């Protein structure tokens, strides 16, 4: 990554060192999470769905329908964990960002380094998930490549957004429970994850439209089994994810810099 300043790489290196301490949890969760979800929801719930809807949603097995949503959710969750916790710790709990800032590093480099390390975790999570999807026969090889790449992109863009938000949090306890209950949970439930968004009343469909998970999931279904998706929607969804990603990085860099120099 030559586009990454040398200082950012040093921060990423130290973040990876911290993650290494959690390697067992990361790997267990990385494999356990997809396996459990695919068995419980994909096969368990899937058998009920297919019983009542012969031919499944979109004319494909239920497992194939939810596979893109699951891998993308996992990537987003991994990315979020890997930026939100270090950011809250760095600014509030252990204040290590202030120690980093006393070296030749800049605030922007610290922000980039944290995100870059999170990117590593997102790649790992997505690749493992992609392989498990293949093993379960939920996707084809080309589909697996497509959704894995998409999951990495979405997870990274989401991580950047969450990093920008976490960078302005001063009351950590409140933020974590709020983020979990008010952002993540509704997004997971109302983004067409387990059923098409069109199955919901129009009154709550907007949650899906503003949700990066829904945009990414639609893209994923298009990539993985060719779900009919108009080109304009593909463009809007990609643009939306990119705006979150680029906007998140710009904002996070600025907020880190400002918070560490005032």
């Amino acid at each position, binding site marked *: 990554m030559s586009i990454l300043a*040398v*200082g950012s790489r*040093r*921060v990423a*290196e*130290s973040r990876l*060192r*911290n993650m290494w*301490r959690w390697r067992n949890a990361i790997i267990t969760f990385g494999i356990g999470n997809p396996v459990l979800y695919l068995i419980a929801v994909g096969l368990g719930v899937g058998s009920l769905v297919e019983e009542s809807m012969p031919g499944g949603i979109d004319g494909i097995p239920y497992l194939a329908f939810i596979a893109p949503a699951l891998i993308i959710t996992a990537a987003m969750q991994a990315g979020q964990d890997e930026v939100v916790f270090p950011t809250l710790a760095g600014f509030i709990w*252990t*204040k*290590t960002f*202030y*120690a*980093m*800032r*006393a*070296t*030749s*590093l*800049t605030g922007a480099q610290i922000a980039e380094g944290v995100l870059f390390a999170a990117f590593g975790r997102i790649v790992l999570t997505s690749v493992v998930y992609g392989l498990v999807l293949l093993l379960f026969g939920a996707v084809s090889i080309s589909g697996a490549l497509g959704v894995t790449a998409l999951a990495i992109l979405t997870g990274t863009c989401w991580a950047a957004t969450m990093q920008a938000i976490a960078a302005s949090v001063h009351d950590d306890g409140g933020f974590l429970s709020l983020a979990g209950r008010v952002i993540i949970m509704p997004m997971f439930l109302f983004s067409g994850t387990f059923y098409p968004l069109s199955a919901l009343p129009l009154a709550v469909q907007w949650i899906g439209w503003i949700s990066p998970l829904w945009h990414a999931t639609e893209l994923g279904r298009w990539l993985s089994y060719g779900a009919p998706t108009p080109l304009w929607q593909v463009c809007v969804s990609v643009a939306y994810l990119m705006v979150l990603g680029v906007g998140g990085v710009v904002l996070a860099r600025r907020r880190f810099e400002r918070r*560490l*120099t*005032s």
Partner: protein
Amino acid sequence: MDVAFPPGRHGWLCPVIWARDLTKSYATKTSGDVLAVDSIDLEVGPGESFGILGANGAGKSTTMRMIGATLQRTSGELTILGHDPQHEGPLIRAHLGVVPQQDTLDTDLTVRENIYVYGRYFGLSRAELQPRVDDLLDFAQLQDKRDAKVDSLSGGMKRRLTIARSLVNEPSLLLLDEPTTGLDPQARHLLWDRLFRLRETGVTLVLTTHYMDEAEQLCERLVVMDAGRIVAEGSPAHLIRTHAGREVVEVRFGAQRSNEVVPHLAGIGQRTEVLPDRILLYTEAGEADLHEIVARGLTPTTALVRRASLEDVFLRLTGRTLVDE
């Protein structure tokens, strides 16, 4: 060094720290702009150990952060190691060691890793760092704790680790913000001993403190700050001589009698300071003055004659005691 300095009072060709009219103000919601540091001048030469003394809120930490190139000044001039922190922060910080007031150690890492990772932030190679980390563990007397988690260390050990960590880039200027606040006496003495050794190696030390004994132990020269301004400057001995005199008689008469007694003390000592719980008389001859007090029939409940200290200087200059008791 690429900056020419106007000839300073101290005559250093290249001062390590050079400030003129250095000012920092913060905008607050309630009371408008607050001046945290109000137009101060500073000059610190290579190898000096320099103290900034002041009560909480006097502007010490704000000054330290501007010197540490992590806080932008509002106005005035400042050069650190010959560079302007406004424009060359990372370059300056590469040559600084910083011991913040609050420990900022990485609790996920071991003692050794904390120093190592910090060295990596400065871009030091693994090969360079291995022996250096080892030396620093020796210096901080933490060799037997090298693989322990930070959480298991005592307060004094954490401070020593923070100091060891701050030395990993072999800084030419070490900034210590209240290095021994919250430590027990034994831990403080151990820390002072380490800082003494550092002084001998020629590192420039700048420290803030509100402990008089610390300032007297460690600082060749110091400034006293109050409400964002420098109110006095000099060596500890010079400051004491100029502002407090030689000796102090401390007498207590009990809270009620204190005010009644004051008029009867007229003519004894050079100056009188009435505190809520005691009266201080600044004098050149403490024993003689105490005899005089007793001779006047003003029997104090307790009496003490002692050498004047920086605490007295501070009281004289600011009208306040340093540590709120």
